[in-house]
């Protein structure tokens, strides 16, 4: 990808959102299905971690 700062900024923003959304949704679905209460929180934390990891992979290594 081109090293454009504005573009990188918005890509990072997109990754952070999608990490929270997808793993949060999976956690919420598990909670809904198993009648538990901790998968949503776990999913959100996992998603936040995963997206930070991905951002580091994409933009942090150079």
């Amino acid at each position, binding site marked *: 990808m081109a090293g*454009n700062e504005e*573009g990188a900024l*918005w890509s990072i923003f997109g*990754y952070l959102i*999608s990490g929270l959304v*997808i793993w949060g949704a999976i956690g919420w679905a598990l909670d809904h299905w198993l009648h538990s209460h901790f998968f949503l929180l776990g999913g959100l934390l996992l998603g936040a971690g995963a997206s930070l*990891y*991905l951002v580091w992979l994409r933009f942090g290594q150079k």
Partner: protein
Amino acid sequence: MIKLLEAAQPGFKPPGSGDFIFQPIFGHSLLATKPVVLLFFSVILISTFFIISARKAAVVPSKLQFAGEAVYGFVRDGIGKDVIGEEFQRFVPFLFTIFTFILTNNLFGVIPLMQFPTMSHIGFPVSITIFVYFVYHYVAIKKHGLGKYLKDMCFMPGIPKPMYILLAPLEFLTYFAIRPLTLAMRLFGNMFAGHLLLMLFTLGGEYLLGSAWFLKIFSAISFSLAVGLSFFEMGIQCLQAYIFTLLVALYIAGALADEH
């Protein structure tokens, strides 16, 4: 809650999302409302400007030709060539159309008498985004094939295999949902909020003008803020047109790249 607030302030009614809904200027068709009329006008305006500026193209350019070429050059070199690279030439018309179209429609927000940024109606940014969405996926699928495109997208080389469970859905969602959503929402949100802000200070100033004498001083402040913010808005409007086009170019560049 809203009723309570309205009861507490019987005088000034702040602008809200209701002020973005227009009745048809004539007849009953939705096609005759202010945003749609502005949209058609922008197309006529852009076409006329660039046809006239390009008609008498000469080696020594007239002022008009110079202005037209400056905008074109900015999109071609500043956005297309820098971001997309080798194959940029065939995407320049697309990028150029998006840029001028959004810029003109945004600037309608501060031009007297029009004073409404068309893109503050979410339908318009969404429509442009749908075009963009199909273009960048089509470009990628045509170049790499669907299987390789998805594989490159979701499975980044050089990371431990178990990590793919964590990252593949994330990448997929980013490409197929979050990117187009943020693209449309960013443009819409900026234009909506900016127009609301200008309305607030203008209507506020107008209301204060009709109040007690000592409040008239604040009316002047409110009006001057409205004027100042109009210039600020003009900056935002240009910036948003630029960012939208830049991101479209980035998405196309990502679609063309051998590795994502």
